[in-house]
C-alpha cells in the first residue's frame, strides 16, 4: 500500500444539469445565494470542488439538503457524468484512474471491486428479491469469486462482522428491521474488500440506538480494514464522531474545509457559524 499518496484527488469537480452557459459559475454559488443560473436556468449541482482523501482517512462532507454533497459522491461512484474537473482514484497497486473520463467497462469494474456505496435508503443498495446471503454473493460474483464455499464463508463472516445473526443468511432483506437492513447494506458494500467506501446519510432516519451501532461499526471497519471513506451527512454529531476532516458545502460549493473539531469549534464562514450555532 502506498500511504504517501491520496486514494482520491479531486480538483475543480463540477456537475451542471441543463444547457450550461458561460455565466453559470459566476451567477451561482455562495455569494449569489443560489445554484440555479438566472441566465440559462441550469442547475449547478457541484462546482469547483477540490479535496484529497488519504488511505484510511474518513472525510466528512456536511451541508443542508440541496447543497450538492450527495452529488459529489454520485460523481465519484460513477453514477453521474462529470461536467468539468478531475477526480483521480488510485488503486492499492498504484494504478490511477481519471474518473471524469473513464469508460463504462472500467467504471463497472471499479464499482464492482474497488468502491462500496451505502445509501440512506437501503432499497437503493439492496436487492430485495434475493436473500441476505445472496446480496453479499452478488457482489462477490461481480468481483470474480466463483467458489460456492468461499462465497458462503465470506458471507457468514460479513454477517457476523455487521452483527447480523448468521442463522438469518437465507432470509430476505424485507424480513429485517431498518437497522439490520442498513447493516446488511454495509456488509454487501464491504464484500469485495473495497478501497473506497462512500456513505450517504447512512444513519439518517434511524432511531438513536440503531444509529449508535452503525457508527460504531463504521469506526471498527476503519480501524480494522483501513478503508478510506467519504461520509456525507447533515448531522454535526456524525462528522464529530467519524471524520478527522470535514468539508462544508452550500449551493454546490465547498464554503469551508478543515479539521472537524476546528470546523465545529472555530468555524470561519458565516454559513458554518450559523449551522454550528443552530445545532448546539
Amino acid at each position: 500500500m502506498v500511504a504517501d499518496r491520496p486514494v482520491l484527488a479531486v480538483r475543480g469537480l463540477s456537475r451542471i444539469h441543463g444547457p450550461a452557459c458561460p455565466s453559470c459559475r459566476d451567477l451561482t454559488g455562495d455569494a449569489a445565494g443560489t445554484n440555479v443560473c438566472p441566465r440559462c436556468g441550469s442547475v449547478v449541482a457541484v462546482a469547483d470542488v477540490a479535496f484529497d482523501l488519504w488511505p484510511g482517512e474518513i472525510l466528512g462532507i456536511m451541508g443542508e439538503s440541496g447543497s450538492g454533497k450527495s452529488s459529489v459522491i454520485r460523481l465519484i461512484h460513477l453514477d453521474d457524468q462529470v461536467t468539468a474537473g478531475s477526480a483521480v482514484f488510485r488503486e492499492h497497486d498504484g494504478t490511477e484512474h481519471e474518473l471524469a473520463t473513464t469508460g463504462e467497462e472500467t467504471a463497472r469494474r471499479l464499482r464492482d471491486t474497488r468502491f462500496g456505496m451505502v445509501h440512506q435508503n437501503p432499497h437503493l443498495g439492496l436487492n430485495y428479491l434475493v436473500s441476505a446471503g445472496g446480496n453479499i454473493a452478488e457482489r462477490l460474483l461481480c468481483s470474480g469469486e466463483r467458489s460456492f464455499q468461499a462465497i458462503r464463508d465470506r458471507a457468514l463472516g460479513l454477517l457476523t462482522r455487521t452483527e447480523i445473526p448468521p442463522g438469518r443468511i437465507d432470509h430476505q432483506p424485507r424480513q429485517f428491521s431498518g437497522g439490520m437492513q442498513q447493516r446488511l447494506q454495509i456488509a454487501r458494500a464491504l464484500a469485495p474488500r473495497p478501497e473506497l467506501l462512500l456513505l450517504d446519510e447512512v444513519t439518517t432516519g434511524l432511531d438513536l440506538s440503531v444509529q449508535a451501532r452503525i457508527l460504531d461499526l463504521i469506526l471498527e471497519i476503519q480501524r480494522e480494514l483501513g478503508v478510506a471513506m467519504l461520509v456525507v451527512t447533515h448531522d454535526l454529531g456524525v462528522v464529530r464522531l467519524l471524520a478527522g476532516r470535514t468539508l462544508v458545502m452550500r449551493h454546490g460549493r465547498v464554503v469551508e474545509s478543515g479539521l472537524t473539531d476546528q470546523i465545529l469549534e472555530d468555524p470561519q464562514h458565516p454559513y458554518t457559524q450559523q449551522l454550528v450555532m443552530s445545532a448546539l
Partner: protein
Amino acid sequence: MSETCTEPSRTTSSPSASLETRHSKLETPAPVLTVAGLAKTFTLHHQNKSIPSVAGAGFTVSAGRLTALIGPSGAGKSSVLKCIYRTYLPQTGSMVLHGADGDLDLATCSEHAALRVRAREIAYVTQFLHCLPRQGTVDVVAAPLVALGSTRDAARAAAEERLRELDLPARLWDVPPATFSGGERQRVNLARGLVHRPRLLMLDEPTASLDRRSADLVVAAIHAAKAAGVAILAIFHDPDLVAALADDVVQLTRPEVPCAA
C-alpha cells in the same frame, strides 16, 4: 522558577539556543515547542463582532519541563492550547513543534500534518472527556496506541498500567466512562493522554474538581511524565500547583477590546 516574559523576540533565537546547548550540555533542555507572536480573534459574522482572545503570546516549552500559563479568566489560556492543537485557527504568529521529523509550524502546516502530529506527538487533556460512547475505559485509554498500530492486547496492557498508576479501581476498567465521577473521568483523560508517550502534553486544569487524594495522584503522574522527558504546557488555577510543578511561568493578560467597529 524562572519568569518568561511574553515578548516574541526571546523565543525566536534558535542559533543562540544551539550555542547554549554546546556550552552546557546538561543544563539546557531541548525545546519542543516555540510559540511566538500568537494572536487569535474570533469573528462572528452574524453579529458583526470581533472578539480578541489571545494577543501576542510567546514562550518555549522544553523536554522534561513544565511551562504554566497563568492569567485572569478571559486572558486566553485555553485558547492558546486550542490554537496549538489547531482546534482554533490563529490569525498571526508561529507555533513551531520541534518534532521527530524536524520542525513543523502548527500555524501553517497542512491538515494532514496536524492530524499526524496529534496522533503521534501532542496529547491534549481537557477537563472534559471526549471519547466514543459505549467504549470501555481500558479501550478509551488504549485508543491512541491502537491508532498508531499497536495490537489491541499490547495497547490494553499499556492502558491498564496507566490506569493503575492513577489508581482508578480495576472494577471500572471495562465500564464506559460516561457514568464516572468528574475526578474519575479526569484521571481516565490523563491516562489516555500519557499512554502513547507524547513529546508534548497539554493540560487544561487537570486537577479541577478533584479531591485531595486524586489531585495528588495526578500531580505524581505529572512529575513522572516530566522525569520521562515529556514537555508539558499546563493551565492550573491553583497557585500552589504552579509553585510545585512549573519550571517556567508565562503570564497572559486579557487582550484589549477595540472600540466598536
